[in-house]
């Protein structure tokens, strides 16, 4: 009984996670400029990652694997915003798109 509940929970988490990952990939393609894409991609990966990893944790049960999974998650949650931030800053400093009208259309950067 308990086992089934856990595995259903895990399935739910995994499915939501996959749904989110698709969502953000589409956002990555759909959004008009770099910064908005960034919202779609780098950012939202964090929840999507969280859901999938948690889903896996439930599958694994209490073991070292769980701990490793949590490490991965923690690592992602530390690095991913840092990397996004560094990227945004670099783009900003390069003068990229303070005004988005200007570049939604063109490929010059």
């Amino acid at each position, binding site marked *: 009984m308990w086992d089934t509940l856990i595995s259903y929970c895990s399935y739910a988490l995994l499915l939501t*996670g996959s749904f989110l990952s698709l969502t953000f990939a589409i956002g990555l393609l759909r959004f008009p400029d770099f910064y908005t894409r960034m919202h779609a991609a780098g950012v939202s*990966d964090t929840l999507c*990652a969280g859901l999938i990893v948690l889903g896996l944790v439930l599958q694994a049960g209490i073991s070292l694997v769980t701990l490793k999974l949590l490490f*991965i998650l923690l690592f992602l949650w530390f*690095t991913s915003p840092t*990397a996004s931030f560094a990227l945004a800053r670099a783009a900003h400093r390069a003068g990229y798109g303070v005004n988005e009208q200007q570049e939604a259309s063109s*490929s010059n*950067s």
Partner: protein
Amino acid sequence: MILAVTAIALLVAMALTLARALLGPSIFDRILAVNTFGTKIVLFLGVYGFLTQRPDFLDIALVYALINFISTLAVLRFFESGQLVMPKDKE
């Protein structure tokens, strides 16, 4: 079964990300795509480990995450230092 669905969803997402990396248009879009791609592959590896019943390969996922982070920073370093400022308009 659900794991397979997740894996496929991730693969599709990876393909879409790849499309963004190919389309560009700016270099930052590409870096962004590469970075996201890295995260996706980390997740995929995790799921794949469970799919093949060998979850002890998570170390690889951890390494991917690490390498991905460092190479993104390495890339950005060149922009920050004004080295590869911005490409002149191409063509």
